[in-house]
């Protein structure tokens, strides 16, 4: 069971699979796939997912989930658009939307940490509530128009010029910045270490003096802020907000974390591994779109890849003497 070959496939199977996929796209799309422009494009497409998956990693490090991030992203976009329609400035809109994310996230945290509801159920309920709220506030319509300031929507369309007619998109920069902050938090701070302790054994962590409840509470708050930030990025990119635009984020974020977990030593969620997971989902989506593969087929392939990756990594992961 512990032969080196199996161990290698277990640990690196996901990366091998991705390398094969990249080579496949490169051979079939030689002119467009592995170009700087396309890679920057992928990074921008993936920027919202990067933010949500990073903060999802925080929650999953504790062994929990947040299913409400997609609805929260939509809700935050709608809230920002409503502030604009009411004549608010960009700063106010961003502040209000991020606060909504924080409050919604902390509400999840309260349910999970202090009321004691399973995260799956608590955040499933919250997902429905926040989604409904987004519909109710927006009247079910897409909010757009002259009320949305140019400063807000231009942000997502510009970036840092790199020369050769390429720009490094602002959204990518923001996503990398968020991921870096989460990395510092999880890997370099006392609180981050304690989150992993909770994820390993919550009761042992509690008895060893880890303040389990406050940390869970705060982590869900962070996931809410991440979701709201992603919602704002989305609204900026499309210069509008509608009550379903964040809905794909949650499953992709959880899939990215799972894909990442297949690449870590003990199968724990790590931000850098999550970024690799995001990249896999992004590359796959981009390549298949360019090859004119139907989006339903793309969904099926993404799901199958997540399952295959998790299955290979659990080969021989059974622990014994």
């Amino acid at each position, binding site marked *: 069971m*512990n032969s080196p070959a199996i161990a290698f496939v277990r640990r690196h199977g996901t990366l091998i699979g991705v390398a094969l996929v990249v080579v496949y796209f490169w051979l079939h799309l030689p002119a467009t796939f592995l170009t700087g422009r396309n890679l920057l494009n992928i990074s921008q497409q993936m920027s919202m997912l990067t933010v949500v998956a990073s903060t999802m990693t925080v929650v999953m490090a504790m062994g929990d989930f947040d299913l409400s991030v997609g609805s929260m992203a939509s809700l935050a976009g709608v809230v920002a658009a409503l502030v604009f329609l009411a004549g608010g400035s960009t700063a106010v809109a961003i502040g209000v939307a991020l606060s909504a994310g924080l409050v919604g996230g902390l509400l999840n945290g309260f349910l999970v940490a202090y009321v004691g509801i399973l995260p799956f159920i608590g955040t499933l309920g919250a997902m429905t509530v926040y989604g409904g709220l987004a519909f109710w506030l927006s009247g079910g319509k897409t909010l757009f128009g002259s009320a949305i300031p140019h400063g807000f929507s231009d942000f997502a369309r510009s970036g840092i010029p790199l020369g050769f007619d390429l720009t490094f998109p602002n959204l990518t920069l923001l996503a990398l910045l968020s991921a870096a902050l989460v990395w510092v938090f999880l*890997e*370099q*701070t*006392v609180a*981050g*270490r*304690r989150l*992993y*302790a909770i994820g*390993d*054994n919550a*009761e*042992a*962590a*509690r*008895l*060893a*003096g*880890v*303040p389990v409840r406050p940390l869970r509470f705060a982590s869900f708050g962070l996931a809410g802020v991440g979701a709201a930030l992603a919602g704002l990025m989305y609204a900026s990119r499309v210069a509008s907000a509608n009550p379903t635009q964040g809905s794909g984020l949650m499953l992709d974020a959880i899939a990215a974390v799972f894909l990442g977990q297949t690449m870590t030593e*003990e*199968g*724990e969620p790590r931000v850098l591994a999550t970024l690799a997971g995001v990249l896999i989902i992004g590359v796959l989506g981009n390549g298949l779109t360019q090859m004119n593969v139907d989006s339903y087929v793309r969904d099926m392939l993404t799901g199958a890849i997540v399952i295959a990756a998790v299955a290979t990594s659990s080969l021989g992961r059974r*622990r014994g*003497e």
Partner: protein
Amino acid sequence: MSLLSVARLAKTYGGAAALRDASLTIEAGEVHALMGENGAGKSTLIRILAGVVQADSGEITVAGEPASIANARDAYRLGLRFLHQELNVASRLSVAENIFLGRAYPTRWGGLVDWAALRDRASAALAALSASHIAPETIVGRLAVGDRMIVKIASTFVDDASAPGRIFVMDEPTAALTSEESERLFRILDELQRRRAGVLYVSHRIEEVLRISNRITVLRDGVSQPPIATAEATREMLIERMTGRTRLEAAARPRQSTNARVALSVDRLTGKGLEEISFDVREGEILGLAGLGDAGGDRLLRALMGAMTGGSVTIAGEGVRPRGPAEGWRRGLAYVPRERRSEGLLLSQSISDNVALPHLNRLSHLRLFLNRLAERAETAAVGRRVRLRATGPRQRAWRLSGGNQQKVMFARAVAGAPRLLLLDEPTRGVDVAARFDIHALLREIAAAGAAVVIASSDREELLALCSRIAILTDGRLSRIVPAEGLTAARLLALCYGDDRV
């Protein structure tokens, strides 16, 4: 003809020899004890018998017939029954369902479960163990640990005409039991002997083995030694055979100076299942908590660690009332819980992560950023102090043996130089050498001025370590006696409420 005979078994896991040359025989009507340090190969031998792994070489004979055990079903058909130290019960199912778990339920009407027959047969199995106090419809999760063990035993006893159980392998069966529950198990062993069954009894508890077994086989480094008749065995001889060391008995109990300062003063403490408990512990003192069964020693430790509901606690003259373990650790308390795997260790994390966990604020930059160098340095230092055997501070906890895992728990507890050390069954399921190291460490910590409170069901341990022993009865403190001159039997009598001193 022996009931079970294994000869020259060997097994290697990925280059490491777990078992090199193990032989033993079990006669009908015999309780054969198997002893050895953690890592000596006992578990591997049991796993081979259970069909979990296959031996690389060697022979197994059951009732004179060569046997090959490729899987659990083969072992079952040969009449082997296993009782493991970890109680794998389905805690949401009833007693009757657990007893029949993994085998065919009685059925009627072409396949539907015959619940009445299931209950009756479970009742019969329990009655055969004189355990009729357990109702077959009770949900197992509501039973005490000892009763759960009896349910597991009953399940190995349910008659199966096609494969009658005749060899019972028990791995540390008393590790989680109270003394009365252990007594009940011993009566069951007598009954098995009367029925001419054979028992392979694996235990670290020397007194127990000397009392109930007929012969003893010792494994050391994967090699078995010729069996000893229990009547001719002594404690010292067994320790020497297991460890290869001759002198393990430590120095006498530390002398307690009566004018040391009071380290911990507990006044009318109440908590879940605890009533008005008051006592003092002086600096350098080791206080034992003894009692029968669920007397409350474990709950008292938890209450001190923050679960108390009333009363007052003074540590070094300072009134404290921790509201939870986090505050307890901050105030200089350290706690080693009873179940190291479920309540103590972060199994997938490194030794260093495990040791540093309660001390991260101290071992960090600005209480915010991790300082891994400080963590590893501290882990290395306390690791040496507790004589941890590991490849380094980054080794994962799940790779360590039980004794070394327990030492990690101790390393965590002593890393902060605690003023008060609270220990719940500190040497449970730990081999003789590790137990010796842990006892030496505790004496050293106490000698350095810390106060230590130990809850233990191992009376020999309490007598060897403590200067005084508090007797708890149903969550109340009935008396505190000096350990000087006390014997294990006398201590047991005190636990049973005997008032003569």
